[in-house]
């Protein structure tokens, strides 16, 4: 978004425009890529949503608003709310687990910091499906967790953990925790240590200094982390399928099912578009909040 002050003279505006254009050669390739592979497909999706489904997939070019009306059906509202709910829980848990981790890593000596950061991202270097199957091995009725619980006598019967919403939360949390830790670490690590010292020097106890200085200043990092976790968690469909056993349907599964199984492309497109719009709204809110935190309320 550009801000133009009312007093800007034509000359100033022309100069600004020139400055804007100077970036064109650098932006063009990326923008072109995004237009071809992002804007056009999303436009197509939006287009699909207003037509009837073909019998075996595809479209019948007959205008209708049925696809949008269908969204209001309790079944689909439920799925969307459930997705938001699960993604939200995952995000909150990631924040609660990730913040102390990031805080501790930022306080390490440079050498150990590198080691810790590598450890955090290490899971990313393993294949996604292998990691997910590993959770199946851990959580199933004869899996390690149940064996262990029985061995120490907490339970006699295996607890069914796999194929539950809780299992999905664990799977998603495991998958996306590093995406919370990294931006949080970045924002905590760049905090000037003298700010905390200044707070302490002015009489703030360590807890108060944390609460009034470190925490608010790390909020932009926390918000970025929340977005990094919430967005993919909400649209993920592999983990709900494998660990959730396809019983707990999330929006991602629903979209896939509409295209592959129900062969209802228009409704699949509608769901996909709604998901995209929801996530865009979340990101816009995050950006606004984060700007407010760092720059303060609008100047009068």
């Amino acid at each position, binding site marked *: 978004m550009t801000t133009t002050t009312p007093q800007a003279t034509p000359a100033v505006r022309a100069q600004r425009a020139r400055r804007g254009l100077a970036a064109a050669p650098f932006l063009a390739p990326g923008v072109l890529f995004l237009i071809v592979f992002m804007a056009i497909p999303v436009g197509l999706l939006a287009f699909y949503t207003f037509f009837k489904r073909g019998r075996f997939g595809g479209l019948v070019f007959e205008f209708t608003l049925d696809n949008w009306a269908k969204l209001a059906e309790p079944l689909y509202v439920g799925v969307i709310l459930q997705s938001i709910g699960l993604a939200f829980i995952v995000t909150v848990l990631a924040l609660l687990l990730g913040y102390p981790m990031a805080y501790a890593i930022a306080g390490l000596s440079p050498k150990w910091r590198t080691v810790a950061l590598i450890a955090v991202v290490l899971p990313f270097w393993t294949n996604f499906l292998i990691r997910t199957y590993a959770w199946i091995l851990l959580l199933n009725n004869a899996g390690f967790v149940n064996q262990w619980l029985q061995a120490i006598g907490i339970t006699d019967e295996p607890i069914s953990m796999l194929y539950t919403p809780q299992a999905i939360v664990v799977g998603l949390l495991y998958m996306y925790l590093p995406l919370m830790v990294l931006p949080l670490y970045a924002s905590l690590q760049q905090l000037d240590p003298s*700010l905390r010292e200044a707070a302490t020097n002015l009489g703030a106890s360590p807890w108060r200094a944390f609460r009034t200085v470190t925490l608010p*200043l790390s909020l932009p990092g926390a918000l970025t982390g929340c977005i990094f976790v919430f967005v993919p968690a909400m649209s993920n469909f592999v983990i709900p399928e494998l660990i959730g056993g396809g019983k707990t349907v999330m929006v991602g599964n629903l979209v896939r099912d509409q295209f592959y199984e129900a062969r209802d492309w228009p409704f699949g497109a509608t769901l996909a578009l709604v998901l995209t719009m929801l996530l865009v709204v979340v990101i816009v809110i995050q950006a606004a909040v984060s700007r407010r935190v760092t720059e303060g309320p609008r100047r009068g």
Partner: protein
Amino acid sequence: MTAEPLLRVDGVRAVYGDTVALHDISLDIAHNEFFALLGPSGCGKTTLLRSIAGFETPAAGRITVDGLDLLPLPAHKRPVNMMFQSYALFPHLSVEKNIAYGLEAEGVGRAEIRARVGEVMEVVRLGHLAKRRPSQLSGGQRQRVALARAIIKRPKLLLLDEPLSALDRQVRASMQLELKRLQHEVGLTFVVVTHDQEEAMSMADRIAVLNEGRLEQLATPQELYAEPASRFVAAFIGTANLLDGEATADGVAVPGLGPVPASHGLAAGSPATAVVRPEDVTVGTEVSGGLRGTVVDTYFLGGASTISVEVPGLPAPLLASVHGATRLARGADVGVTFGRATAVPRDPSQPPSYGTTIPTTAIPVTDAAAAADMDEAAGNATGVPAASAPPRSQDVSA
């Protein structure tokens, strides 16, 4: 000096790994004193300041404020406030919230906070900026916010870490005056850490000069200048001609120059350095009875001029200063005599250094053709005084 000091630093020793940052430093600071800790970077002055504030833990020693032992107290319980070098303003809080922070942490009531914040903002002339964020302020304004934030709790002792180093020269001079005004107005005890001797000299009542973790000298600015206790202090404070030699009964015998009369209490025959301030050097074509030399360069400083004179037998040019402009030109053959001089002990194991600092504001009044040579002369002389300058050939001006 009152009988009971406000701050007493007693045998404080600080160690980082296997380097000693402070060697058993002891000093007393009186109530309402403007005290400066002066030294080059790495001399330990900041370590001492941070030890008082509670951000470093000395390996040994005691620090007391009004008899209260500080070292067992955590940083947030010490009756000491500090202004940080980077100011460390909270970027997410407005100016007034920054200033109120200390009172809020103390649990002072809303109404009183508002009154006291308003009061302090008047003192530092920030009233109109109350709602701004630090990022919207100039360097000088930030500095005043930092100061207001540090004095609002009326600490017994205010620590200032390089308070002026982040400001440009113009703002600096006015802030220097403002700090002094404030110190009188609010009646606080200031401890300023600085590496800038001019800053320390112009503001402080007393100065402790630190070098490599040791206290070199603790005295008033006047004493430091007139009677330096060591070669380091002589070179670090002001501009000085340092002439290495051996102590005699009434001066220093400088090889290649002869005896230089100087007051001192050193044993005859011990290695010594004569310290002659530029204003105690008389230079002129009609001066006789002293040394002979050739003018290398002159530097016009506005109220005074510095003349650099090459004397055969001396490894570095001598500096003399005179009021106003000088009529002496580059290449002039002049006589040189010394007025008052003092002598300080010299460590013979240290390489000889010819400490002559030319003020950095020097404006050369030599003709344009000499400009190229001037750079070289300035380059030679503006470095850290203690660093050894390469001996210059005697006929530079030829």
